[in-house]
Structures are given as structure tokens and as C-alpha cells.
């Protein structure tokens, strides 16, 4: 029996976990891989794929069972993201806002906020986006400038956000603002808001979403937009966690960021898996100098390095997810997984391109998409340069002498 490439063996998964992951892999093989090429070339939102994922119940993967979700553990979540990303990393991007904001509401929201949002997030009826980054503040979150000042029972929001994935189609924004711009340190003046809006509208109250969306190297099919707030009013009840949540936004968002890093690591794993899958097949189909190129030692070295990197990435991701799931601080582990798996993804995409030669460079084939989709992972959710700092600081703190 031929062993499946990138099987779920060796990860100590339960039958439930395997069944869920196999179902997602089956969906990716049948519905995403055959259509992704045209959708990405046209930069088209994959509505049919999203509908299929919604019917499968995938949007509720991380929402607690009592609010209509599946309450799946972090390991299954991470490996599910890898499976989706093996098909198209943009699809993982589309569902991810749901998981981040849903997770924040489940952890920090008031009961009223949970009842109001979680069932609709689980069903996919309400889509959401997560918005922290600004034109002048990315990795340095403390430098954000967007403010929300209180006027009676309302908050008035001013400022600009950048690189908001799903920003147009979302009906709910998880938004980080400064409610006390004078706070020192600045993070103590930050608050997370749950801003509702009309999905698909470019102009709602004082919120404008400039069109067209931002143009990107890869990560097509899902919109990345700016959000411009100019005196936009929301009720004070939009504060995540209610009145006590004021000034807690930075900490609330940071608690979700380890999960976010595991997510990006998993996306890298998915791309690397696909790049390897294509490479090992092509290495046996293509001949040069009288034998399949997979029989040439330099190609073998590439295959060996790719597969080793992929296996190591999987183990790092699963270890980080297990640690976070168990309730421990996993900043170092999540950082390691993100750093390693995304660098492996880029190497795998490039090596797969080299193995495919001219075909890998052609827009007719899948490899060049994988090659264009990986750089975002090196930059997003904390650049890999920042990851190294986080890992080192965490290690120095853990092993202080």
C-alpha cells in the first residue's frame, strides 16, 4: 500500500481529530485544488469554497459547544489550517478572522457579547476581521494611533487601520484603539472594541473602506483593505469584556496572538506540504540524462531537506499547540513554530520551483503561486525578525541567572 504523503501518523491524534482532518483534506482535494488556479489568477473571492466550508461547520471549529461551535482543540485547529493552506492559503485567511475574534470573545467577552456574536460566528452567518495594524504601526503595536473618545454612551473613533484581511466582507471588526492616548506605558490605555458594520458596504457612518483593495504579490482572492474612521460612533457596549475591558485591549489581543502565530506557522506547513507533494511527483515523472531527475543526488538532497523541514515544522506546531491548549504560556514555542515553519515554507516553495525548472516559473503551474504566497508568512503576525527577539527574550526570562 502506498503511504500517503504528509499523513497524520506520528502525531498521536485521536480518531475524532483524524476524521475531522481527513474530511478537510478530502474537501481541499475535491473543491479547492481543482479551482484555485483560476480563482487566484482572477483575484476572485472563493464564494463557493467558503459556502462549502460553512456547510461543513468549519467556521465554528474553535467556538465553544455551548454557543453552537465544535469546541475543537488547538492541535486540530492548527492542523486543519495547514490542510486548508495546502489547498490555498487565502482560504485559511478567510476563516482566520473568525477564529481570532471568536476566540477573543469566548475568552474575554461578556455573556451578552458571547450570546450576541458566537452562535452567528459559528454558523458563518457573521464574518469578522481582526484589525490592529496601522500605516505606522505593525510589529510595534504600542505605537498605534487610532483613538476612541467617550461621548455619553458612545465612543467616537478616529484614525486609520491597514492590511485588514476580510475587512470589506466582515460584519464585525475586532479593533484595537487607544481610549487613553496619554497612558504610560501606552498599552495601558488600549481597548479592544467589537465594531459591527454592514458587511460589503464601503461607507458606513464615519467608517470608509477605500476601494479597490490593496494590491498584493500573493494572498489573492481575499481582500486586504484600509479602514478609515472619521468620527465613527459605536455604543460604549462595544468594549470587549464590558466596562472592565477598558484599558485591557492590548493584553486581550496579545493573549490571542500566540494562537495567531500557530496559525501562520500552520499556513506555512500547508504550503510546504503542497510544494513537496508536487516536487516528489515531478521528480519521478521528469527525466534528464537518461533517468528520472529524482534519481540524481542533488535533487534527492532537496527532497530530503524539504521533507525533514516539513516534519520538524509539524512537530513544532503540534508541540506549541499542545502547550497553549494545556494553558501554559507558549510565546517561545509559538514563536519557534512560526519562525521555523514559515522559513521552511519559503525554502520548500523555492526548492520545488527549482526542481520543476521552467515549469515551476510558469504561471500555468501551481508552484509560482506557492512561491508568491510564502513571503507574507515571513512578515505577518510578527515578522520573523521579531519572532527571534520574542524567542530570545522568553528564553532569557525562563533561564535567568
Amino acid at each position, binding site marked *: 500500500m502506498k503511504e*500517503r504523503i504528509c499523513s497524520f501518523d506520528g502525531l498521536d491524534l485521536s*480518531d475524532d481529530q483524524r476524521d475531522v482532518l481527513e*474530511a478537510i483534506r478530502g474537501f481541499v482535494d475535491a473543491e479547492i485544488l481543482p479551482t484555485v488556479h483560476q480563482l487566484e489568477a482572477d483575484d476572485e473571492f472563493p464564494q463557493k469554497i467558503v459556502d462549502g466550508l460553512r456547510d461543513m461547520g*468549519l467556521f465554528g471549529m474553535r467556538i465553544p459547544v455551548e454557543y453552537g461551535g*465544535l469546541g475543537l482543540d488547538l492541535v486540530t485547529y492548527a492542523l486543519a489550517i495547514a490542510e486548508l493552506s495546502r489547498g490555498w492559503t487565502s482560504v485559511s485567511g478567510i476563516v482566520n478572522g473568525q477564529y481570532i475574534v471568536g476566540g477573543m470573545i469566548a475568552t474575554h467577552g461578556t455573556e451578552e457579547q458571547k450570546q450576541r456574536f458566537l452562535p452567528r460566528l459559528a454558523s458563518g452567518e457573521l464574518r469578522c476581521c481582526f484589525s490592529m495594524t496601522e500605516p505606522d504601526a505593525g510589529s510595534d503595536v504600542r505605537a498605534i494611533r487610532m483613538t476612541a473618545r467617550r461621548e455619553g454612551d458612545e465612543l467616537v473613533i478616529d484614525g486609520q487601520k491597514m492590511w485588514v484581511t476580510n475587512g470589506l466582507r466582515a460584519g464585525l471588526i475586532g479593533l484595537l484603539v487607544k481610549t487613553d492616548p496619554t497612558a504610560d506605558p501606552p498599552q495601558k490605555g488600549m481597548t479592544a472594541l467589537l465594531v459591527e458594520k454592514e458587511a460589503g458596504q464601503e461607507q458606513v457612518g464615519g467608517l470608509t473602506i477605500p476601494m479597490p483593495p490593496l494590491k498584493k504579490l500573493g494572498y489573492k482572492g481575499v481582500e486586504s483593505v484600509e479602514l478609515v474612521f472619521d468620527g465613527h460612533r459605536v455604543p460604549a457596549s462595544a468594549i470587549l469584556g464590558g466596562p472592565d475591558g477598558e484599558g485591557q485591549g492590548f493584553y486581550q489581543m496579545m493573549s490571542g496572538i500566540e494562537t495567531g502565530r500557530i496559525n501562520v506557522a500552520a499556513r506555512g506547513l500547508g504550503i510546504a506540504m503542497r510544494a513537496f507533494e508536487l516536487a516528489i511527483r515531478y521528480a519521478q515523472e521528469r527525466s534528464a540524462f537518461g533517468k528520472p531527475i529524482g534519481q540524481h543526488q542533488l535533487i534527492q538532497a532537496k527532497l530530503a531537506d524539504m521533507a525533514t523541514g516539513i516534519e520538524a515544522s509539524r512537530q513544532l506546531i503540534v508541540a506549541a499547540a499542545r502547550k497553549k491548549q494545556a494553558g501554559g504560556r507558549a510565546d517561545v514555542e509559538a514563536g519557534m513554530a512560526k519562525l521555523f515553519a514559515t522559513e521552511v515554507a519559503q525554502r520548500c516553495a523555492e526548492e520545488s520551483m527549482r526542481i520543476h525548472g521552467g515549469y515551476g516559473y510558469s504561471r500555468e503551474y501551481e508552484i509560482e503561486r506557492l512561491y508568491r504566497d510564502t513571503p507574507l508568512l515571513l512578515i505577518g503576525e510578527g515578522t520573523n525578525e521579531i519572532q527571534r527577539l520574542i524567542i530570545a527574550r522568553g528564553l532569557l526570562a525562563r533561564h535567568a541567572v
Partner: protein
Amino acid sequence: MKIAICVKEVPDPTAEKRIDPGTNRLVRTGENTLNPYDRHAIEEAVRIKESGVETEISIVLVGPASAARTVDKALAQGGDRSVHLADDGLADSDILATSRALAALLERDAYDLVLFGQQASDAECYVMAAAVAERLDRPCVSQAASLTLDGSTLRVKRQVETGYDTVEMPLPAVVSVSDAINEPRYPSLPAIMGAKRKPHEVLSLADAGIDPDTVGGAGSRTTVRGLSKPAGRGASVRIEDDGTAAEKILAFLVENKVVV
């Protein structure tokens, strides 16, 4: 309405099949899964249920205890309960023996309709539905391309080489559905996770009242004397398109009496 769907566990159909040269049997030690053709039968039963007919869908499987995961896959696809005959004495059963075991399981309950997929993807066997129907003494139709239920009558559109036959039959009946009858849906993640919590009945031969001598190797009449690869195709004719390819293809088809 009680519908039984007889499903089979098969080696992963996407992997290459291997024959054990010692036993002349298919190697089943790798990844096994639900016979993909059975998904069409389950989907059809679910559609009957969704049409408003009060229906209980039972998944019936004869296979080793390890096939429990395949039972769950079938339940996730839409079954309400399962009956799994798992007994070491079933090993080496051929079509005759397996049909005997399935018929015995089906006789334990008053099913109005027994559905099969059109074939099993492992040995490409198409005849199990007919064999079971014969043992149950029920009418049987194969290659059903649509089912219409009218009280206790079932109208079946049956796919044949020249078009469709429409057959009416009284229930209870046995039907094998074509893979063109529907597009099976993806099981939802809640259904996958809920499958284990559905009622599972796991029976031994003794539980099912089946004489061990009538199934397994002892109850089988098939001997595989030898195996050979199918003959290769004859030399192919290559037609380069110089503007007359269509005419050449037509001439070839007429010459070989494919079209007249």
C-alpha cells in the same frame, strides 16, 4: 420507513491495489476506508428522509472489528444507527458467504428498502445487491439513476446502455444505485464528531444466529487459481491534426463500427 444501507470497507481507492502473491488476495493492511460508491446510496437515503418521509437509516457492515471507523464514516454521511457484524470467523468470505451474512443481518429487522452502492471499489464486484436480494426473496434493481417513492411502491429509473428503463416495484425491495444518481454531500464536522455517539450494534456470528460453517473460508466456494494482468491495448492510431483530423477520426470510428 426503514432503510438499510449495506456498506463495505475497502482499501483506499486512491492508492494502487496490490495482490499478495502467496494467497492471491488483495492486500488490505494499508489505509482502509468507506467504499466511495456507498456514499451515493447513503446520500439517496438522506434525501428520502429530507423529503419529509419519516425514515430511519441503518448502516449495515460485515467486516473486521477495525472497520468501526468506516462505520462511523458512513454514519457521518447520514446514518442514524449501525449494525456491524464483526467476527474473525468471517475472514476469507467470498460473495456467496458475505451475501449470506448480510441477508441474515437484514432479516433481523423489517427494512422497507435495502440500498447498495453500484459496486465495491476493491474487487469491482457489482453483484452483491442481487445476491442478497435472492437470499431475501425480494425484487432487485441495479444501476438506479433515480428513486421515486409512492406509498409502498418504488419507481426506479434504471440506467442501461441505450438509455433508461423505468421499473416499478413493491416494497420491501433491494436497489443498487448508480454513481450518477446524486452528488454525495461532504459530511459536516459536527456529523463526523457525532457519529460515534449514534447507536452502534456490534454482533458476533453467534449473536446474529449465523452458522460459522456457512460463512468465512468454510462457507465460500471461490478459489482463485491464478491471476494475470489484463491484455495490453492494441497498437494505437495517432492522428495529427493537419486540418483533416475530424474526418480521419470519423472514418476510423465508422471502420470500427463505433458509429454507423
